[in-house]
């Protein structure tokens, strides 16, 4: 069974630094990797190991404070090198030194895929549960609540994002097995999105959603909003296809791979390329000899330019572990009267910039390019959000902490990434993703 979805609202950004060649020439095994519990919202980490411990791939680093069976497992075999803590002793990351020879030899889980009770337990213990997210709130789901449906994102439409067709090409069997497991966890449907023109085959058990249109076509929130929106009281799970292949592999082999394929992208990268490396690898290792030497300040992003994380030069590859982007920071640019500029190198949705009409790739930097203002223009967010949501009103409800209206205006249907494009186009330069994240957090605290 398959559904067709054509979206019109949205925007594809033409940014320089996309990977052209679909080949992997490098296998990068770094000296250390890091796992950050912040990548798993809703998971409250308690350390299961300590500095200096030897750890095998598949053994837990953390377990959840409230669900003891839910583990966050180590993706490699090696030694726990350091536990980095921040304010109030919050664990920022655990640094692991992988064993250069043994890194991929791990602990094989004993799986009986027939029994549902043990399926959930197995997913939880094997570190697969933390890969799932739920709507509302975009957090790790509660193992005791059965979801209405499960939505799997089968492509990523963010700027410079890797092609799932490519990174999943040899993992279709795992994807099938993963989908098969997911179908047992819901009484509703398991939906799998597929980009128009993708080579991904129909996966048995899943309702395929063929989506045509610009970004955010690939955001799972877009599919949910248009196919079966989340109502108050309902829970829907979301997960990306690469994570589903991990779940599938775990169910078939009782094992996971320690490696991942990463798209190294961005205008400040010499040769954008795919590399194979360990989950949580450091940026320095991924970008060795591949950074432009132009003397400009740079921003190192794990993920894409719209919703990635600014990790800095010394940072590590963060979840979802398949893309890094390097762009100019721009704080070293003196731009004279930028608001009057007719330069063709300025990227904009506004037709007042000549660049708007050029079919070229832009190299935008990280400046917000203006001053922060009150919400002045109307309809800007609507133009890039293909959901039945009134974004301006939802944002205003969040800013005024009006729980009643947040609920009525659909806060259960959104996660911060749904507002990324709106944040990009916003003339008033408001921090929409942050506002939404804080709103969700507030909502969760108040209603629990």
């Amino acid at each position, binding site marked *: 069974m398959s559904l067709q979805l054509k979206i019109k609202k949205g925007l594809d950004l033409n940014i320089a630094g996309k990977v052209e060649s679909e080949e992997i020439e490098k296998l990068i095994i770094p000296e250390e990797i890091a796992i950050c519990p912040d990548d798993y919202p809703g998971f409250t980490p308690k350390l299961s190991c300590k500095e200096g411990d030897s750890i095998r791939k598949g053994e837990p680093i953390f377990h959840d404070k409230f669900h003891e069976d839910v583990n966050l497992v180590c993706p490699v075999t090696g030694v726990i090198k350091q536990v980095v803590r921040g304010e109030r002793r919050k664990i920022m990351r655990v640094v692991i030194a992988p064993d250069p020879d043994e890194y991929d030899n791990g602990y094989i889980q004993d799986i009986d895929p027939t029994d549902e009770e043990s399926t959930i337990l197995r997913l939880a213990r094997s570190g697969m549960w933390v890969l799932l997210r739920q709507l509302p709130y975009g957090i790790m789901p509660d193992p005791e609540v059965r979801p209405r449906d499960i939505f799997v994102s089968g492509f990523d439409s963010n700027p410079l994002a890797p092609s799932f067709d490519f990174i999943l090409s040899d993992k279709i069997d795992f994807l099938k097995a993963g989908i098969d497991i997911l179908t047992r966890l819901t009484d509703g449907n398991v939906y799998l999105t597929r980009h128009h023109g993708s080579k991904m085959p129909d996966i048995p058990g899943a309702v395929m959603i063929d989506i045509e249109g610009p970004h955010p076509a690939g955001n799972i929130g877009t599919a949910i909003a248009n196919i079966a929106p989340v109502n108050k009281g309902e829970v829907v799970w979301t997960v990306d296809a690469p994570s589903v292949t991990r779940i599938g592999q775990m169910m078939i082999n009782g094992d996971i791979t320690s490696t991942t394929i990463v798209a190294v992208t961005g205008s400040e990268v010499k040769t954008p390329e795919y590399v194979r490396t360990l989950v949580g690898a450091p940026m320095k290792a991924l970008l060795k000899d591949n950074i432009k030497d132009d003397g400009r300040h740079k921003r190192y992003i794990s993920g894409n330019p719209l919703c990635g994380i600014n990790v800095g030069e010394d940072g590590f590859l963060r979840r979802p572990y398949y893309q890094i982007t390097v762009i100019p920071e721009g704080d070293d640019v003196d731009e004279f009267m930028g608001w009057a500029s007719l330069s063709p190198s300025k990227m904009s949705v506004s037709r007042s910039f000549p660049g708007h009409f050029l079919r070229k790739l832009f190299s935008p930097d990280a400046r917000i390019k203006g*001053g922060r203002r009150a919400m002045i223009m109307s309809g800007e967010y609507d133009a890039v959000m293909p959901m039945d949501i*009134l974004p301006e009103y939802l944002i205003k409800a969040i800013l005024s902490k009006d729980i009643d209206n947040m609920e009525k205006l659909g806060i259960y249907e959104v996660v911060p990434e749904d507002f990324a494009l709106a944040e990009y186009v916003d003339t008033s330069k408001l921090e929409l993703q942050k506002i939404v994240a804080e709103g969700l957090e507030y909502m969760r605290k108040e209603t629990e």
Partner: protein
Amino acid sequence: MKALRNFLNKIKPNFEEGGKLHAFRSVFDGFETFLYTPETTSTSGVHIHDSRDSKRTMIIVVLALMPCLLFGMYNAGYQNWLAAGATVFPFWEIMAYGCLAVLPTLAVAYIVGLGIEFAVAQWRGEEIQEGFLVTGILIPLICPVDTPLWMIAVATAFSVIFVKEVFGGTGYNILNVALVTRAFLFFAYPASMSGDKVFVPSDSILGLGHNLPESFTGATPLGQVATASGGDVAITDITGKAVSTCDMFLGLIPGSFGETSTLCILIGALILLIAGIANWRIILSVFAGGAFMAWIAHSFETPTYPASYLTVADQLCLGGFAFAAVFMATDPVTAARTTVGKYIYGFLVGVIAIIIRTYNNGYPEGAMLAVLLMNAFAPLIDYCVVQVNINRRLKRIKA
């Protein structure tokens, strides 16, 4: 450019906390961000931002107003020449005269308005906002050219303070600031703001132009209609010649400084629409609403209401209607914000403007009042549209 940047960097510490000139921080900030795009980079959320910002937006609106401003200059001079009985119209002399006629008003509006903005920004410790760049140029355009300067100053101060700043500044005002300035003048000083003396400059300036005799009258077409009695009205220009629809469209007629030329207003509209700043839905529905109401009025023409004799085209070309549709109703802060709301809002602006103009002989022009009235109702329209969205969401649960 490097030298300028270095100079700014050198004097910057004086304006920071504890510096000698800290009291002028907002002024310095305003100029610095005007000259150089801020180097602020994103700290959360998206790492890249679109190049457009509110400065860009405002400056394009100012640009779109230029045809009206330039035409207004020529028209002011032209009317003066015409009233003096001239037969030759020297272009540059007329332009210079018109420029001198409007310059004081423009300067007063900007000095008073920006002065208040700077002071408030300093007081609140915020960045200067650029909203007044547009308001400051709108004010001279929608006022009669001979409005006394002190009245402009008082009205501008009133509306900037009580319509904008008390509500929180740019983006929070509930009514259009420029229109409130105009309305303030209209209701506070009715004698100086309507009638047949104020729309044509009547003195020579720096030796340019002509001193017109006391007995001179130069009523606007709508003024003539409003004071007419019985039957169809023959609209005439200053010299008594009949005014055709084409003249009304081109705009060489007496009227508020920048509002007379529908052609120039449409050029402005084109600029705004190409740049994607004004909302086409609003402009279209204002004209649709106006045309609809004008058609009804014209279909039931009656001597009691002389304006009902005006054709649809006349109604849309005359007075401040087109200007209000393109530059006033589209103000994003005070217009309806929802898509459906914009159609309703615009349509009602058009309808009400013509109703006031036609069926209330006390007010020759209704566009300004219509926009202000709908500014007040825009939140209600949006509320209804938002409720529809909310109800749709609630229905989903029940289904």
